[in-house]
Each structure stands twice: as C-alpha cells, then as structure tokens.
C-alpha cells in the first residue's frame, strides 16, 4: 500500500522519515520531514524503488476538471516510459477529451483495455476511480510481477472524464450538481439542453429505455452519434477494435456489475462467460470491504436501455465489455470518506476481470501455439518415417 497516508496532504515523506515523526501538526511534520530527507537524501532512492506518485495529489477527495487535467500531465512527466497523453476528441463546448495510454513499450501492436469514466456528469466517484486505477497500476507495476505482465502484454486506454462539459457544469454550484447529460443544445424547437451520452451510441439506437423528449434525462439525441463526445470514442475505438479485448465503462450508483446487452432482446454469444467473469469480480469486490454488488446483464439487472457505449463495444466485436455501477445504493453524492474504500474494491473487481481476459488470451494462446508446434513436429516425424519405409 502507499506509504503516503490518505490524510497526509501536502507532505511527501520517506518511510524512514515517517518513523521519526512525533509531531502532531502538519506544519511541524513538514519542517521535520524536509529536514529529514535533506539529511538522508533517500527521497530519490525511495522513488526509484517504489515507483512514482504524483506529488501532493489526494486520491481521497473529488477533483475539479482543471486539477484532473494537471494530474494527467503529471502522470506523463513522472512516468514517461509507460504513460502517454492522447487528445482524441472534443466536446460540444470545444473542450479536449484526453486519455492516458499506459503500457510498456513494444515493437508489435499490443492488445488493449479501454476504460472510460464520467460519461454521466453527476457520477463523481467514477472519475475518482479512473484516477485511482491509474495511480495504482503505476505504483505497483515495478514491484508486482503480475501487474508488470499486464502492462507488458496490454496497453490501457484510460479516459478519466469523458463528458467534460457535463462534469464541469456539475461543479458550478449546488443547483447543477445533479446534471447527467452533455451540454449540447436541444434541436427542432425543443428547449432543453443535453443528450444522454449513454443512449447515443449506434447500438439499437433509440429503441428502448429512452425518451424522445429532449428535456428527458434519457434523451438519446436527435440521431445516433449526434454528440461529439460519443463520436470521439467511436473514432478512437473503432479502428482499434481488433486489438481492444476489454471495455469498461464506469458509472454510479447502484453497486452493480453489468454486461451486455442493454437491449432486452439481444443476448451476447458469450453471455455465460460474461456472467462468470462478473460473478468472480463481484466476489473479489466483496472480499475487500464486504460490499455486495449485484451481477447481471444490463437489461435484466438494471433496466432495458439501448444505445449504451457498452452495447456498442460488444456489437463491434469487443468480446468483454462491462458497466460497473459503483457505490452507494442511494446517492450520487458519495461522501469523500468512501472514495478510497470504493476505489479499492472496484480495483479488485476490475483487476479480476483484466486478469481473466489477459490469461485467456496469452496463456491459452501459448497453449495453442505449443499444441500447434507439437502437432507439426509429430506429423513431420510421421511423414519422414513413412517416407523412410516406402
């Protein structure tokens, strides 16, 4: 676990220095620690062996957009060999949509994992989780061989905030906090703002779980992919659909692990496998803090709804697509003291899914390759034996 305690906001301290603290106040701690690490000069060494952490970034509070953008830049500058920033689209209000590409460099095209957070503006725990996830894999890949293997074989595309305009709007004041949609204007004389991004994708668009009134919170847009934000996702993911093996979209609330489809009349060909993976993830989540997450297809466990990003991902062939609905069971305004436990359990769930998918691809593939080799060898042997005797 991190050697920075959660409430240790503005002081970076080495493990050695931490042991010597007796002072209770932050100020005294600060000056003591600074003196300590200057004397020992261990800080650089500690960072080398522990992996890099963004200085002063608190993963147990909610961050406004500007801080998240700065943090993304910090992730790149602190981990330049594994992290790249990719600006891959823009919003209605012309803001940039960015993701962090995380993975060990490779000469060959790698398989990849997609994760988007903050499709719905008011679900603040979602961007908080993406930031935590990034922090955690960067913190552990140098010391945890399993995480290192994941980063070696996979690239991770993490979008901390997809609905940038909406997220910014929810920070405006306490009357805007519960905004859900984008901020694009209504069309055809309809006066209200915004489209539900998670109904806007080309996946049985507009068929169920929507309202054609543009004032509704489940308005799917005047047409599929009317939203710049949705088009940005499609423009990035579609060309990479043969490489992306796992697609996560993170939401709240409800404590659910959902898999395709949201349309009730469509069943994924790998429904059983998706259910098994999701059950295992729910079990992994429960093991952390005892929280129950309900598992099911989107249409069965939540409500029928078409046009979601998850449905679209599955339809274009990405085999493993999941919607995670995080804590709690009644509110979008999750208290900050629940951010860390929520992130910890969600990380366990997501990690369990990624590990399954990774092992299926890379270990089964290895088995297939060696089986092929063996078959080839034995048939060659047979051929030459036959040749010899005839």
């Amino acid at each position, binding site marked *: 676990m991190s050697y920075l305690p959660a409430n240790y906001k503005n002081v970076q301290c080495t493990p050695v220095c931490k042991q010597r603290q007796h002072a209770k106040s932050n100020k005294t701690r600060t000056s003591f620690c600074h003196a300590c690490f200057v004397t020992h000069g261990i800080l650089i060494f500690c960072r080398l062996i522990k992996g890099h952490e963004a200085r002063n970034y608190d993963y147990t*509070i*909610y961050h406004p957009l500007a801080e998240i953008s700065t943090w993304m830049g910090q992730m790149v500058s602190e981990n330049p060999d594994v992290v790249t920033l990719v600006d891959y689209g823009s919003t209605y209000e012309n803001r940039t949509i960015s993701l962090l590409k995380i993975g060990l460099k490779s000469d060959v095209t790698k398989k990849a994992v997609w994760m988007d957070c903050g499709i719905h503006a008011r679900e*603040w725990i979602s961007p908080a989780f993406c930031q935590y996830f990034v922090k955690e894999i960067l913190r552990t890949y140098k010391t945890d061989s399993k995480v290192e293997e994941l980063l070696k074989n996979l690239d991770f595309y993490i979008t901390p905030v997809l609905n940038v305009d909406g997220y910014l709007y*929810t*920070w405006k004041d*306490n009357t805007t*906090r*519960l905004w*859900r949609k984008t901020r694009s204007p209504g069309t055809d004389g309809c*006066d*209200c703002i915004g489209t*539900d991004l998670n109904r806007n994708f080309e996946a049985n668009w507009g068929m169920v779980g929507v*309202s054609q*009134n543009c*004032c*509704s*919170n*489940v308005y799917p847009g005047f047409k599929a992919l009317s939203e710049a934000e949705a088009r940005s996702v499609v423009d990035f993911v579609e060309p990479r659909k043969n490489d992306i093996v796992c697609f996560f979209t993170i939401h709240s609330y*409800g404590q659910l692990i959902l898999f395709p489809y949201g349309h009730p009349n469509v069943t994924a060909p790998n429904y059983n496998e998706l259910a098994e993976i999701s059950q295992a993830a729910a079990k992994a989540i429960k093991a952390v803090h005892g929280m*129950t997450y*309900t*598992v*099911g297809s989107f249409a*069965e*466990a*939540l*409500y029928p709804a078409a046009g979601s990003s998850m449905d679209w991902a599955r339809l274009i062939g990405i085999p493993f697509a999941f919607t995670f609905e995080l804590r709690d*069971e*009644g*509110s*979008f*305004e*999750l*208290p*900050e003291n*629940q951010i860390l436990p929520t992130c910890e359990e969600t990380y366990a769930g997501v990690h369990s899914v990624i590990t399954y998918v990774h092992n299926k691809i890379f270990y089964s593939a290895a088995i297939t390759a060696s089986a092929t080799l063996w078959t080839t060898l034995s048939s060659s042997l047979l051929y030459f034996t036959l040749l010899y005797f005839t």
Partner: protein
Amino acid sequence: MCEWEPGISTQFPSTPGNQTEAAPSNLVLCLLKQGQSPVERRLTPHTPAASPSVPGQEDIQAAMPVEELDPSHYPATRAAKVAEHFINTRYGSPFAWFGSSGVKKAGLEFTLKEMTRNDMGLCSAEVLFHRADERKPPQVQCTCSGAFQVNTSAEEEDLYQRLRNATSLLSGSDIPNSVGHIDPEMAPFWHLGGVASSFIMLRESNESTLLNMAHIDNFTQMETKDAQLMFQYDILLHDMVSQEILKWKLLLSWSPDGGVKVLEAEWDPKCHKILFLHLFIIFLIYPNKTIY
C-alpha cells in the same frame, strides 16, 4: 403548459379520506425483531398492538408469479426498494434510517441496513403493485429480524426538547453538499426528510420506478403552537429508471409521540415554458402509528 411528465402520475386523489385505505384486519405489518421477541415502535393507547400472528395469504395476489423473479434482476430490487420505503414510514425517525441492500431471494428476502448504526438484518416481504389502478400505492407486508436497535426515544426526546426550547427556528440547506458531506447536527434532519420522503416515494412507486431521496435543497422549521414541530422541506428525489430528479415540497410535522406526518406535498414538475405552475397540493395524513 407542461408537455412532458417524468413518468410519475399526477392524478392524486386529493381528499384525505381516499388516502388511508383500511387494511384488512389480519394484515401484519413489518415487525422489526430484536432476537426472538418482536419490538413494536411507538405503541400508544391509540394504537392497538399489531397481532403477532402470521398473516392470512388469501387476499394477497403476487404482482407477478414468484418463480419468474431472479434475485439479481430488477423487479426484485424494485420490490425491495418499495419495502424499504414502507419500513421507513413505519420505523424511520430522525435517528433511524433504513436501506435495502442485496436481494437474497426473489420471493422476497433482502438485507436491511439501519444506516445510522450499521445494524443489519434480513427482511422477508410481499409487495403488491396494483396494476389495474396505478394511482393506488403498492401494498407491503413484511417481517424483519436482526440486530436492530429500534428504541431511539431518548435521542428523539433530546432533540425535541432542544428544538422546543430554542430561541430561533432552525433551518438548513444543501444536504448533503456536493462532496457528500452532512454536518452531524444536520443528520437528524436528513433522516427526517428521508422518512417524510418515504411516504411520497411509497405512494409514487410502481413496477417501473426505483426511488431514492437524492438531496435536501433546504428545510425550515415553522412556527407551531401545538406539541408537534413543523418543517417545510424542499427535497430532490431520484428515480433510477427514468433517471429524473423530482422536486418535492413537503410540509411535515414531527414529535417523539406523534411520529412523522406529511401534511402537504407538492411536486414541482419540470416545465420549460412555464406560464403558470401546476400545483398539486395533496393533503396526506399518514401517521406513523397506523390504526389497524
């Protein structure tokens, strides 16, 4: 003119007489049990003790055949939510606030949490949705057992006396705030708002809703001459199915003896070309102790 409705019926019976339906006398409502013996909340001479006998099943029709429900599917979750609202109307107080968490059996068994003390238990419930007449609220009967501390009379009395003896009227706003924080002094009023909301949410629930109280915009204590304390609340409810935020204005009264009563409830629909507000004023008199 409001053209759009959020899926919540606006057709309320508007007289008090229609509100309280006399339930069959053999209906046993939720008993929150501690250990073996049932504990009844707020028993007064006006309320005959509910019979501890097992309810008759004859007049209860399941909303859908039980064998069709899967515990992880949404009909069971929605039914548990309705039972949760019902339990809060009966047992909720400024110091007791219940949540359903995790359906165990579709038929219906779910985990119940008392959220101020993290007490947990198991409820078995039957929830009846009146499909023929959606204006009728769902009917619930249930039995719950677990380590619930339902006796909060000391804290309630303490709060009641503090408010009665205060020199100024209390008010609060933005509960919780954007980052989910509730001041400890405001927590009882969050729960009080929740209990009052539960009457509304119970009334408004059907098979296509999943209602939660999302936010208290503000509440204000009102002047009263009698024993009941009175509050005006501006509350936001969230319906998971439509994803809409529903604004309700509630006038409620509370005292440790009288329980929570919703006196007036007004839904503020989302109109964008508002020429005049549609005001639906409903007089709801739902005492916590219901006479059966």
